[in-house]
């Protein structure tokens, strides 16, 4: 039913073609009450995603639950142990406010966990680093289902470094983690900057031979991993491609073009419905 004093837009049918907030109607020329409150609710969710601290033990519990349910992985005692022995670390950002204003500190490891990292060092092919980033919700929702999709087809000859979980971290903190563990590649899973319609987007960054001089141009990124975004199978497919190509070419970043992309050939006509005759 139409709320009183709201003028609805007779082009609501266009909503099916975009997630953009079109045909919202108006009160006078302003947003109707329900649309205004809906927006506030979604902004509140995005804000919470940024400010709610990631609960590390809950996240690891979530991963274990998913593993135990996955037929291909439930018998893998090595993976259970891998999760159990996760090393939890902190960046040098002391709190969220500082984290938001000092990205430099979010890229540096706090000294507290470095000894444990050093004790766990070995000669590994790949380090997986879970980082809270800008959305704890993204990590809680996406890490476990992604891992369950990705781990079964990981080349068994690739040796995994101990799993790490970093709080108040930026992408580049994975460099120090992998370097200390002595791993050739690092795969960082991180909560992305939340959008209003997507507060739970996870990003995946691969870096080959990370070190102190690594820059963002040396990384490959897969973005928008979430329900309603890039699916877990697609994300896992891209991750495998990047890891294998990076191992083969012994590099990552702009020189490693991502050719696993499915090319979208649907944009052949430049006419929209607005000018169709």
């Amino acid at each position, binding site marked *: 039913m139409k709320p009183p004093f709201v003028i609805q837009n007779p*082009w609501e049918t266009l909503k099916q073609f*975009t*997630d953009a*907030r079109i045909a919202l109607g*108006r009160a006078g020329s302003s*947003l109707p009450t329900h649309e205004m409150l809906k927006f506030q609710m979604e*902004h509140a969710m995005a804000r919470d995603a940024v400010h709610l601290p990631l609960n590390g033990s809950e996240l690891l519990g979530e991963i274990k639950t998913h593993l135990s349910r996955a037929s291909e992985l439930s018998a893998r005692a090595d993976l259970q142990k891998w999760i159990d022995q996760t090393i939890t670390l902190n960046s040098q950002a002391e709190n969220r406010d500082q984290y938001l204003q*000092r990205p430099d500190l979010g890229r540096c490891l706090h000294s507290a966990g470095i000894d444990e990292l050093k004790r766990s060092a070995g000669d590994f092919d790949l380090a997986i680093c879970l980082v809270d980033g800008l959305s704890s919700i993204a990590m809680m929702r996406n890490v476990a289902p992604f891992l369950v999709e990705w781990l079964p087809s990981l080349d068994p000859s690739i040796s995994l470094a101990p799993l790490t979980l970093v709080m108040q971290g930026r992408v580049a903190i994975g460099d120090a983690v992998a370097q200390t563990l002595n791993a050739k590649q690092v795969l960082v899973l991180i909560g992305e900057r939340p959008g209003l319609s997507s507060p739970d987007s996870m990003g995946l960054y691969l870096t080959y031979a990370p070190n102190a001089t690594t820059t963002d141009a040396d990384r490959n990124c897969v973005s928008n991993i979430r329900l309603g975004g890039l699916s877990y199978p697609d994300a896992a497919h891209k991750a495998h491609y990047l890891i294998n190509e990076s191992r083969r070419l012994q590099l990552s970043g702009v020189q490693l073009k991502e050719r696993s992309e499915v090319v979208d050939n649907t944009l052949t006509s430049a006419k929209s*419905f607005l000018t169709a005759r």
Partner: protein
Amino acid sequence: MSTRSGFQYVFGTQSFHFSNLAELMAKASPLRSGDVLANVAAHTEQERAIAQMCLADVPLKRFLQEALIPYEQDEVTRLILDEHDAQAFQRISHLTVGDFRNFLLGDTCTTEVLQSLKMAITPEMAAAVSKIMRNQDLILVAKKCSVVTQFRNTIGLPGHFSTRLQPNHPTDDLTGIAASIMDGLLYANGDAVIGINPATDNVQQCSTLLHMLDDVIQHYQIPTQSCVLTHVTNTLECIHAGIPVDLVFQSIGGTEATNDSFGINLALLAEAQDAALSQQRGTVGQNLMYFETGQGSSLSANAHHGLDQQTCEARAYGVARTFNPLLVNTVVGFIGPEYLYDGKQITRAGLEDHFCGKLLGLPMGCDVCYTNHAEADQNDMDNLLTLLANAGCNFIMGIPGSDDIMLNYQTTSFHDALYIRKLLGLKPAPEFEQWLQSMDIMDKQFSISDAIPAPFAKNLKALQNH
């Protein structure tokens, strides 16, 4: 007291020293997180207030003698100093920065006087005086600087307020984009430009989008211009391939190194401007460059040379004004809280950018915006929008429901544009206003029609029956 070796200020028993003009400018800047991140901000509130007093005593001439980035090292510095109008500068050459503020606020400083002085004022002078101005000063003086530009309509006339219709879509889906365009046009938005940020940034994609936009503008005979916000080299390729290009877009910064990080230089911008001018697609004017800027871009490219972010931003306007742009847009809250932390800092930066741009003769608009990790919300945007419209801002963004589903940030909505037009009695660009009336989208009292105009209704129906 200023000396060759820096600036000394004695306050009571305390003595403050600033080793050069760049340090003094940075420490006189109102607090913002980006300057703290760059480690150039004042360490205490008192040091900031002292720096502002000290800066007020600096003669304007000094900015011509002491380049903040050496002339030999930076083509933006060379551009600024080479283009300086020494003749016009005589009128203000005896002033200090503090005197300059008084002069700007004075009633003898009219729109005409400001227009005659624009090339006498360097970006650094504009930045310096802005640092010792309150928000109301920035609004009042900017309001006096009228900058009008034209391509297919007239933007920036007093009493008018335009919007860029921004119909972005995460996969560049043409139907999705067209849906947002229709929504925006029927909400009377889109007179500054219909401008798409492409999700996939390559020449073929941009060509498709440019054709689509050109079709829409021609089909409905809309007195506006289109733009696909891609890298200038892509736009150049499109022009050479005969694709219909109205405006040339580029992000620019205030140092040569920043522009280098964007993959551009002054010669490339000039080449693109020439190529677009040769198309002669403008009907009422030939302003066809569209620039975007934003405080923090130089630091983020590690190309700031120890300058504060607002001074770098003002220098970007020195670049912009060489190319007679149709639109200059400071994307104020997009960069994130490490540069502008909260609503207060975003608001201040928006007013500074608008003021500096206008003083330097630019058609300033503002992307009144924020990200979800900044300490800001819709109320902060309402405030900044209302302040900027009172300051005579040329245009803002218009987007469905404030939510950019491709770039993941919030900016002003179609509704916001109607709010500010209604509140302050502001009209769209005159040619566009006439079109809105002829299409029965908006009447003379700014009332939006409840119905869909016949030409749009026809195509909507065809889509439904498809």
